[in-house]
């Protein structure tokens, strides 16, 4: 199995059904497939060893992804917003690859290998290339190289082989299972695993993808209404902006059957408001990592509905990531590697066909196939998985393990607070002390003492922040992951 087969099957079965829309242009499955094959031939005629994509989210993205797959070349999406200093080493690490970019000048690139993104959509592109595409692409070959967002340091190149990604798609998506009128709105960036997994799943299911080049809450809502979007995926910061824009009025998006979210931890207050405003929409929480070919656990619409209806157990589970997908195994272990019983928090390990756990520097999967996610979490008696956050972010205060997310959730529930970050700062007596940095809602007012009392009321005293500071905003990655190390550096600096 390789990625190009996913599109090939849809193209031969669905033919003229619309596959992808960006702006005023829509390509059918057959047109997308033809464009991808033309690009594959062009890439091979250029002698490329890979396909770097350094551009925005539009129809040229699927053409490049499947073009790379047809050519049997790894696809390497980079964040086109990176500054020259960060982009250049990534470009230089992939010399020999064709670079699809927004402008002809890319720092560190061989000009002969740069292709303007806009030209991928030209029917004339590469028609001169008389190259035969490989008849067999080994499922063991690397399909996608993704630089992980690196909330804790320098980005690492994660490798996903064709077999990992196709296992995910054929194991979770029914081929051509979407009705012809279904359409998915995509705003997650092309260099994120969610953007790639989303593309593959939607193309295999026969659903049209509508791309927005950048996220704007009003444009997002307008597009759902105008394009009659049935499926959408957002990261928490996007949903927070939509909820803020709606300001208590209904979303007015009756076509939206499913709204899925993931990429970072969703603040509960945002989710609860969204559930109220999106009437008739089913919510799905998807948890996964780059190294697991995206989603490995889901909290489905029924769980969200039950929580919204007030079921106390379901309300607790709204803070979980749901149950793992069929074919995925999960274990929670302590620091010594012993498997922990139900309900006890520890390190989360995963195993399954879609799990790669491999980087350019080597694999971190153990002999039995288990991948250490480095997330801390626990499983309840009905197999719901709760993720507390990154193990590296855990605060150890006087020997007690404290998950920052729990304290952040409490702070975000305060009416004057819109965002919060909790970190551990070095302390001679306790090892670490809890510090909180909060962002006040515009026009609101609250004092440090008031917040302190509020935390003591809602948290055990050992979890009450010792230090609380105000900032105008907090540092996040493009997908909404909080950059705690920057918060910490700011506090210590």
């Amino acid at each position, binding site marked *: 199995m390789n990625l190009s087969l996913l599109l090939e099957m849809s193209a031969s079965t669905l033919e003229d059904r619309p596959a992808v829309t960006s702006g005023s242009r829509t390509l059918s499955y057959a047109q997308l497939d033809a464009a991808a094959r033309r690009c594959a031939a062009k890439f091979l005629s250029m002698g490329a060893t890979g396909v770097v994509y350094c551009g925005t989210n539009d129809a040229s993205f699927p053409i490049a992804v499947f073009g790379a797959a047809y050519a049997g070349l790894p696809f390497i999406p980079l964040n086109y917003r990176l500054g020259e200093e960060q982009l250049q080493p990534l470009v230089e690490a992939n010399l020999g690859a064709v670079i699809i970019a927004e402008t002809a000048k890319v720092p560190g690139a061989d000009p002969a290998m740069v292709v303007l993104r806009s030209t991928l959509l030209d029917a004339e592109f590469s028609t001169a290339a008389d190259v035969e595409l490989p008849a067999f692409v080994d499922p063991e070959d690397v399909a996608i190289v993704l630089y992980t967002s690196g909330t804790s340091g320098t980005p690492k190149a994660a490798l996903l082989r064709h077999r990992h990604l196709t296992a995910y798609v054929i194991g979770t998506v029914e081929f051509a299972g979407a009705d012809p009128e279904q359409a998915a709105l995509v705003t997650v960036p092309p260099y994120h695993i969610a953007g790639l*997994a989303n593309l593959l799943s939607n193309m295999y299911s026969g659903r049209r993808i509508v791309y927005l080049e950048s996220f704007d809450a009003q444009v997002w809502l307008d597009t759902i209404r105008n394009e009659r979007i049935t499926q959408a995926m957002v990261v928490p910061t996007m949903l927070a902006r939509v909820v803020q824009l709606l300001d208590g009025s209904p979303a007015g998006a009756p076509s939206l059957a499913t709204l899925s979210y993931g990429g970072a931890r969703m603040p509960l207050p945002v989710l609860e408001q969204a559930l109220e405003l999106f009437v008739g929409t089913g919510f799905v929480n998807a948890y996964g990592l780059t190294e697991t070919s995206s989603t490995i656990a889901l909290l489905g619409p029924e769980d969200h509905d039950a929580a919204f209806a007030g079921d106390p157990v379901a309300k607790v589970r709204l803070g979980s990531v749901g149950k793992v997908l069929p074919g995925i195994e999960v274990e929670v272990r302590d620091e010594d590697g012993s498997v922990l019983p139900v309900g006890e928090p520890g390190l989360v390990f995963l195993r399954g066909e879609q799990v790669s756990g491999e980087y350019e520097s080597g694999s971190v999967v153990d002999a039995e196939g288990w991948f250490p996610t480095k997330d801390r979490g626990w499983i309840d008696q009905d197999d719901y998985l709760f993720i507390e956050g990154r193990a590296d972010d855990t605060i150890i205060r006087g020997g007690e393990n404290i998950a920052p997310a729990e304290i952040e959730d409490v702070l975000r529930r305060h009416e004057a607070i819109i965002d919060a970050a909790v970190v551990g700062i070095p302390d001679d007596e306790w090892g670490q002390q809890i510090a909180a940095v909060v962002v006040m809602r515009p026009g609101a007012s609250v004092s440090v003492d008031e917040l302190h009392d509020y935390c003591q009321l809602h948290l055990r005293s050992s979890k009450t922040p010792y230090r609380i500071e105000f900032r105008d905003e907090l540092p996040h990655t493009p997908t909404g992951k909080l950059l705690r190390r920057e918060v910490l550096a700011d506090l210590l600096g």
Partner: protein
Amino acid sequence: MDIKAGSRLACPECSVELVVVRPPSSPVALTCGGVEVVEAAADRPGGGHADASGDGTLVGKRYADEDSGIEVLCAKPGPGTLAADGREVPIKGAKPLPSSD
């Protein structure tokens, strides 16, 4: 014939095309409408099956034979029905999940 993961197989007599998801753990004769499948690039005379009994093979469905371990995905449908050493190969059930992406 070497059946490895990712290999493309085809029925010589009908339109069925398959992709190997999991190779067999022991040698097996995979047939479509009673005729042994061939590599997709091989000569395919076509003409249809003399015996077209069975449900045929459906595009996008996975077919898995427990005894030999072989699992294939149907990339192109056809009237021929798959069998492994004469045993009909059942569709591997997949529970559709709510759309997460």
